[in-house]
């Protein structure tokens, strides 16, 4: 690579995205510092502590990110099956040699450092989906293409479910957005939405009321379409499927889900209150965020944060620190940064000439969106407790690096959008 080429690279790189990225990482560092800060022991900056480590993670992530920018853009498309393959092997390996942390066998110990393959699997899968769509340009009108795309997504999803790490597995549903963009019928999204609604209704409304409602609604739509036989049949089938689904959910809920997951769902649905048990995290997180009020208590002034009332505060519940110390204003700024980043990435994706880059861009935006939505939603009590990190902000090397790689691959592709892949 010539220097001229290198100069062109950095000229073409979307610096606005990188600025947002750095801003989010800085916010992360500041709030991790606050979460860990202890008024008695903290004196000087300490590299041995978690905020010290996070600084190292951020610096290495930057190095990693800029190294990616120096790679050849063709590399990602060409090697995507291999990357995917490696991450799948790691996912299988973790089931064998993985270390169990908090009930999830998600970590492979590598010396003093632990690797979380589920994080890597996200961009492995994103790359392969992009490659698949880029190469074959399926419009997802036929069963075959849906099946292939589904296979690429569901294979890692199932492997992660086996760990079992439901939270990380759920993130793979984010790939519905890029597929939708590329032509997957909107009905899939609606059906998916319907499944969620029915799932919730299953807990809140007894079967004896729910089934007649479904039958009446289904019957009504079937009657509306009595002229179009095909539609009428689909409606009847949909009704039957919905009812079967209800029973499957009930059964799966009781047989498949872990007791703690069941409790979490029940707490969110308001069926159970358990302030000292499973609901403790959420209650404390809400108290911390709520106590921030409009302007927040100020840096290092949050009592809930300082005195350790929110468990897992530097990782999954980092948003509670932001909420307490920076208030509604701080929360709004963070959410605005994310939305700005997401919209930016999608706009960048749309200007790509290659389908591969566009699909990959959508994958990046969707994955980040899922993490942000689930994580923040969990800290403010509108989503069950699902342990996934807040991108770029939560403490942890694996997650920061994988998000950095995810994002910077896209930036690289974008900087090279005029070239050929």
């Amino acid at each position, binding site marked *: 690579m010539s220097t001229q080429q290198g100069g062109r690279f950095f000229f073409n790189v979307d610096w606005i995205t990188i600025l947002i990225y750095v801003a989010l990482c800085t916010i992360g560092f500041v709030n991790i510092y606050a979460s860990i800060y202890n*008024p*008695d022991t903290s004196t000087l900056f300490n590299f041995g502590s978690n905020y010290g480590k996070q600084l190292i993670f951020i610096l290495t992530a930057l190095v990693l990110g800029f190294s990616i920018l120096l790679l050849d853009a063709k590399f990602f498309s060409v090697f995507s099956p291999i990357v995917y393959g490696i991450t799948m092997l790691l996912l299988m390996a973790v089931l064998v040699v993985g270390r169990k942390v908090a009930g999830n066998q998600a970590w492979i110990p590598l010396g003093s450092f632990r690797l979380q393959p589920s994080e890597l699997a996200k961009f492995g899968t994103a790359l392969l989906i992009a490659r698949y769509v880029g190469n074959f340009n399926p419009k997802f009108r036929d069963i075959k293409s849906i099946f292939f795309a589904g296979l690429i997504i569901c294979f890692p999803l199932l492997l992660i479910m086996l760990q079992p790490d439901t939270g990380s597995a759920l993130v793979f549903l984010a790939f519905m*957005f890029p597929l*939708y*963009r*590329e*032509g997957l019928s909107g009905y899939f999204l609606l059906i998916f939405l319907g499944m969620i609604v029915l799932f919730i209704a299953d807990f809140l409304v007894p079967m004896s009321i729910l089934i007649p409602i479904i039958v009446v609604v289904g019957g009504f739509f079937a009657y509306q379409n009595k002229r179009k036989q095909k539609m009428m049949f689909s409606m009847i089938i949909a009704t039957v499927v919905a009812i079967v689904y209800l029973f499957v959910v009930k059964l799966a809920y009781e047989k498949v889900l872990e007791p703690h997951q069941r409790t979490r769902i029940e707490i969110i649905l308001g069926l159970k209150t358990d302030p000292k048990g499973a609901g403790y995290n959420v209650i*404390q997180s*809400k*108290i*911390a*965020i*709520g*106590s*921030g*009020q*409009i302007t927040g208590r100020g840096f290092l002034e949050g*009592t*809930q944060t300082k*005195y*350790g*009332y929110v468990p897992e505060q530097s990782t999954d519940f980092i948003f509670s620190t932001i*909420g*307490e110390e920076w*208030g*509604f204003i701080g*929360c*709004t700024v963070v*959410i*605005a940064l*994310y*939305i700005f980043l*997401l*919209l930016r990435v*999608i706009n960048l994706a*749309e200007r790509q000439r290659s389908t591969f880059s566009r699909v990959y861009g*959508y994958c990046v*935006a*969707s994955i980040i*969106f899922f993490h942000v*939505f689930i994580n*923040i*939603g969990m800290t*403010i*009590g*509108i989503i069950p407790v699902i342990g996934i990190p807040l991108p770029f902000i939560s403490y942890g090397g694996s997650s920061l690096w994988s998000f950095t790689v995810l994002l910077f691959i896209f930036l690289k592709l974008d900087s090279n959008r005029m070239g050929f892949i």
Partner: protein
Amino acid sequence: MDNLFNRKYIIQGLFIVVALILLGQLFYIQVASDRYFLSANSNVLRKKYTFPARGIIMDRNNKVLVQNEPVYDLMVTPNLVKPFDTMALCNIIGIDMKGFHKRFNKARNQSRYQRSVFEKQLSVQTYAALQERLSRFVGFETQNRTVRHYPDSVAGQFFGYVKEVTEKDIEQSNGYYRPGDYIGKAGVERQYNDVLQGERGVENTIYNARNVPQGSYLNGKFDTLATSGETLVSSLDIRLQKLGEQLLHNKVGSIVAIEPSTGEVLAFVSSPTYDPNLMVGRQQGNNYMDIFGSPNRPFTVRPLSGYYSPGSSFKPLDALIGLQEGVIDPNTTFNCPGGYWAGNHLVRCEHVDGPISLRRGLARSCNTYACYVFQKLMTQSKYKNKIAAYDDWQAKVRKFGIGSKLDLDMPFERKGRLFTSEEYTKRFGKYWGYTTIISLAIGQGEMSATPLQMANIMAVIANRGYYIKPHLIKGIGEKKDVKEEYLVKNSVGIDQRHFGPVIDGMQDAVNAPYGTARDSAIPDILMCGKTGTVQNPHGKNHSVFIGFAPRDNPKIAIAVIVENAGFGSAYAAPIASYITETYLTGKLSGNRVDRAEWMKKQVVLPEVPRPKQKYLPKDTTGKTTAPATAPATTPQLPQVPKPTAAAADKIVENKNIQNTK
């Protein structure tokens, strides 16, 4: 690009919608609701309260009437408790296992992390036994507080009592009180609660999530020390108070003694009484129920809430108003043929004196004289009609304090009773006149006064024309501040020169051979007074005496009422004389010591309880005095019955025939 390009907006729109949902929930928990903010503080802050000692109360001679004794509350912080020998703890504080679990669960339901009271008010002895082993009962600690102690065991109604605050108190105090605080519920403890209670101290400590203290909150910016309540100096003379309670022992009634020149109440006796120490400590609830249920209602503060017709003791007021209005002069005589004809009805006298003067009329308690004066007052030519005449008379009587509160510094004062002309019109219709209400002249009829008001009237006469609002607390705090209203002289609108002749009559009532209370004369002291025998529709007549002494430069004005004890001269007058003599000379002279001892032993109790029907007094017509709603529940608190219009005239007659002297 194809039409799929539009899906970009759907996805971006979805992102924005979700972001708005998140912001909406954030707005709710951070801005709209302060619930979480408050929860955050209760998470972190533990307030430790230190309780102030209530202010002490002294009598007028600086003798301590109320002091504080240490007691100990056993506190528990449920989540700190480790398994221990519960039986041992139960034995020390005297509860059983059931009680232990009840208390422990109650504390745990309140809060696992905050301390709450496990057992209240352990004595010093229990505390000593407990303290030795407290280290074995992890999670338990003691907190000291003080409770009241009344060394003389007298004046229960004056002191009132202190109790733990109720839910209602907490609500009404806007959060000032917390469960476990004490508040004065009656008497001085209630009236001066704000002054007596002092300020609670508080220590704010920050605790981390593992309930380990992390130092004081904001360097103790909001911490305070407990400050004790202010000292009160009472106007009571504890010697008189004790003597009064002894004299009224086994009797029902009141003694109120006032220093006329200052309005200070010297004795405030309500009998039956109770030992204020019973209303302290762990047995408070049980004792309360016992006292509450005992006959003659010891909790009733009779000096303030007992309604009595003043009876003959009202006659000095007749004379004073008559003199002031000029309808009589000191030399006016009326003829007493043994009664006064009011229309067709006779108001009888106890005596037949023929021509009788003002002085003698008062000394002999002549009903005829009083009625003539009343008649003259009501028929003055200056009045347009009877309404104007009565209203004017009634306003003059009110100036003496009858019919309105005297604002004594005690709760639950009642104002007495004096009808307005409207009320008479309402009761009798258009046609009533001075003959209809002639019984007012002799202090009967639609007139009731509390013992305090009667004593105050004596203070007015002793002062020759004014009174100072009676009060029980004469100094507040270290500087012994006196409330300004207790320095104001309230004039009753009678010129000073008119008091001489009336006081002459009252002097004779006690000291002349023909006086009604001559047996109660005090050697070497000129006591002026007036007996009353008050008709009581519920039983025997009440014995009343009001007076002051000495005649010149009076030091004490007194009202004594002994319920159901008959003639005023029989019980009330001697009791008043013993109190007066003791106050003025410090002792009783000669055989009066033995007579006072005899008096202390007398038992004059109303016959209670009796079935309702038996309250019908035999000497009156059932029609007039036995309304179906006769307050059988308050037999010892007489109220003048409400007669019907038709029966009104008869009452006048009935009431006077034998009962007023």
